[in-house]
């Protein structure tokens, strides 16, 4: 990356910025749709931005018992997630930083963020932080194999593990309509639900500490720190959804850097993501949260789906 370095950087900034900007909207949209399904009006579409602005303006409060790790946690988490967002093709069938790595790097980076946040959660000495960290790491660990296998399934099908190359390949060869795609998609969808802390694995809206997972982990945070965490989580969710849609329905994604193609791509992306958002909403509002010790079964299901996807494609 020498000649096109400035271009790459620009693209990376653009995509990161775009996703940062769009992420709060996604969260709010899902909230609103949920509210509507429960015959509530729900928050205004810009609520997410209001919250962030407010939190960022508030003074930051920290625990006396905490060390620098506590402050570093949200920042590293945020940085990792945002950086990860540049590894995924969104509007264009290429990831800005695809030259620096593929699926494994993406997963690794998200794991880095999680590590940072979980560690920081243990720093306040509050039992809830510990509980949240423990559960979050547990679920993540259980999700990891299924996630990997799901991604491997599509990666092996395309003969590459680089998301940019992969998506381009998919677009060129056109939709394969292979059943394994469906299985892999289902498997990954479950994982995404788990990773983004949604019902039935976790309840983002709960205020009962004992049932919290992600929320318990960040219970102590306030002000800008909290803002970073919330924002990063939103970004993470958006990244996952974009990954999902572009891996399995790369329809309309821009193959060339032309205004029209870009606009089409943008529209297609927005449409597909909101479609997936609807799915997430439906799952959230039609299911109850699982007991922690039922979650492994769910993970096992998705693992099975992913493995099956591999098997039926290659045997």
């Amino acid at each position, binding site marked *: *990356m020498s000649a096109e370095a400035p271009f790459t950087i620009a693209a*990376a900034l653009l995509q990161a910025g775009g996703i940062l900007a769009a992420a709060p909207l996604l969260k709010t949209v899902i909230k609103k749709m949920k509210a509507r399904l429960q015959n509530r009006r729900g928050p205004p579409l810009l609520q997410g931005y209001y919250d962030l602005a407010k939190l*960022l303006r508030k*003074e930051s409060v*920290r*625990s*006396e*018992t*905490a*060390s620098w*790790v506590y402050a570093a946690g949200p*920042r590293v988490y945020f*940085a*990792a997630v945002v*950086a990860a967002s540049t590894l995924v093709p969104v509007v264009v069938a290429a990831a800005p*930083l695809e*030259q*620096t*790595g*593929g699926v*494994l*790097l993406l997963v*690794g*980076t998200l*794991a*880095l963020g999680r*590590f940072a946040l*979980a*560690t920081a959660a*243990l*720093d*306040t*000495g*509050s*039992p809830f*932080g*510990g509980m949240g*960290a*423990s559960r979050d*790491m*547990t679920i993540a*660990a*259980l999700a*990891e194999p299924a996630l*990997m*296998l799901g991604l*491997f399934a599509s990666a*092996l099908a395309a*003969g*590459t*593990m680089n998301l940019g190359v992969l998506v381009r390949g998919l677009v060129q060869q056109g939709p394969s309509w292979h059943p394994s795609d469906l299985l892999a998609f289902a498997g990954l969808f479950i994982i995404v639900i788990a990773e983004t802390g949604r019902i039935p694995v976790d309840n983002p809206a709960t205020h009962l500490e004992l049932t919290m997972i992600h929320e318990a982990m960040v219970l102590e945070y306030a002000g800008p720190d909290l*803002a970073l965490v919330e924002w990063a989580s939103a970004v993470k969710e958006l990244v996952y959804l974009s990954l999902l849609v572009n891996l399995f329905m790369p329809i309309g994604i821009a193959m060339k850097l032309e205004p029209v193609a870009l606009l089409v791509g943008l529209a297609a992306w927005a449409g597909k993501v909101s479609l997936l958002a609807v799915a997430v909403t439906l799952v959230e509002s039609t299911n109850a949260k699982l007991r*922690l*010790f039922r979650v*492994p079964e769910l993970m096992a299901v998705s*693992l099975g789906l992913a*493995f099956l996807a*591999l*098997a039926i494609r*290659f045997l």
Partner: protein
Amino acid sequence: MATLAAIGLPAAILVRLFAAATALALARRPRACRGAALVGSMLASLLTVTTAVEVVASGHSVEGALFRHAASGTVFDYAVTPLSAWFLMVLEVIALPVALYSVAYFSHSLAASRTAVVGVAFNVLLASVEVVFVSSDVIAFLSAWEVMTLATTALVATEHQERASRRAAYLYLVMSHVGTGCLVTGFLVLAGHAGSLSFPVLLSGRVVSGPLRDGLFVLFFVGFGVKAGIIPVHVWLPEAHPAAPSSVSALMSAVLITAGIYGLYRVCAFGLGIPDQNWALAFMFAGMLSGILGVLYALTQTDLKRLLAYSTIENSGIIVLGLGAAMMAMSLERPALATAAVAASLTHVLNHAVFKGLLFLAAGSVVMATGTRQIELFGGLLKRMPWTGLFFLIGALAISGLPLLNGFPSEWLTFQALLLGFTATPGLVRLNFPLAGALLALTSALAAACFVRAFGIGFLALPRSSSASRAHESPLLMLVPQAFLAMLCVALGLLPGVTLSALDTVVVSLPGLQTTTSMADGALGMASGVGRFDYVVPGGFGLAVLGALLFVAAVTARRATAPRQVPTWACGGEVTARTEYTATAFSKPLLMIFKAVYRPRREVDALAEVSPYFPQEVRYRAEVEPTFERYIYAPLVRAVIRGAGAMRVLQAGSLHTYLAYVLVLAVVLLVWLGGTR
């Protein structure tokens, strides 16, 4: 340089022996004794490194004879092949900082009376490991192997007043010796067929074939597996590593297991001819098992050093898994693929050595400062030992395989090897690869959980005991080595290309492999080695993360006012060490989920006087069942003891019985002779 390299190794051995002798002579003066032993060791390490670097750089072996045993007519030939040189480099990269660390560490936490013994054993151990890596003669190899065992035993038994360390030392001794027995048989049978004792002939891969070859493979697999800490012959490891002085534990965990790995490479993978597919499968399953069980057991440990020891088993498993993939590729004659897998495995040998050494050194500082190994009694150490804490954190991030640190590249490479193996392997066997991939993913994720727990519970929040609250930072001499290793973690993480291109000569020197040049993408990047299947540039991506961090700083750090410090909210109560989340609690969910493996047992007895609802006190005991110890080893030992006891009747003290033996023997022989001529 070249000349120095030529004599580097024998010189190093001499220096070590001299250092040992001096240490023994100065036994009465601990200070001087320590100095002699450790400085000598560092000097020797430098000498060895020159040779190793020279060999790895040039790709030409350095050969010679170390010593001639006139009586039995054995000549200790040695040959520093690129492979040996690689393991030597790994060894010395750890041995140097460990020696430096020990200078201060021994003075604080080693009884003066033990200094001489430990100093001698330390040098003898390193010398023997060096000889193991380079010897090209069976007898030389076996003697070095045996001396290595003895020296380690001596070091493990340093605190021989404690029953635990006596037990650990003996367990280690016995298991290693059984392993050595397998090796002796294997090597001498080979020698019998080859009519020679020199490795180049023995390990040419053309000596034996057919079932005998498989039998020998099994012998060698067991023999080397014991030292490599492969499950199920691992039971000595979690006992022995914690028992030794921490700096020595670092050495053992980082380097001693690589002696076993080296053996697996030299003999099982590349010494017996083209590997059989079943061998590869055996390796892969052993690797998976060790990886997953190792990390699972690590997760539930509350003894920091035991935890690290179990994680050593895990990483050794990952190394073997990579090697297994390579053997599978070799059995299918896919050199490119085999190269990728070997590169993955060898890289992990180096990386694991670095971060495990770092972690053990940091753990040593902590144990020295708190006087305990119980994570539950640490807490809040980051504020009291900021540097040690930082280094431990770096090690923890690295061992969890997170990007930007050196755990990531090797796990990345291993994943490549597995996925490519899947594409390359025909038939149902291929499903074994995604399985391995999934297990590897699970393993590394669990490792992350394990080290979040270790660092978070151990170093953060409030001190959980008075000893922890009185802890203080270690002396500079103990911090410098950790700093060195920590920097190495970062450097190797950001410059994986360097490792790969250094590996080139090593890999090329192995039969059936090809160059890694297609894998190293400059200093910064790596590619999967097969087409553009995958590639990664951690450094470049690191810039992105850095940029994001700057953005965060920009967003949050506008305000001048410092953040307000308030007590943590604990449901209205006061946050004390007792309200903190414990390590046991942290791993509880996983304990429940993996019941099948842990078979946990808990006893809760509540003393209630008034009514069961108002217990006076509640006692809670929980333990994880040591499956292998309980169901394989304990019965074995009992059987042996019982059998031996039963034999006592043969010598029951009655002269008449003894005479009867002779009578019976005479009659039997006479009948055997028969009559008619």
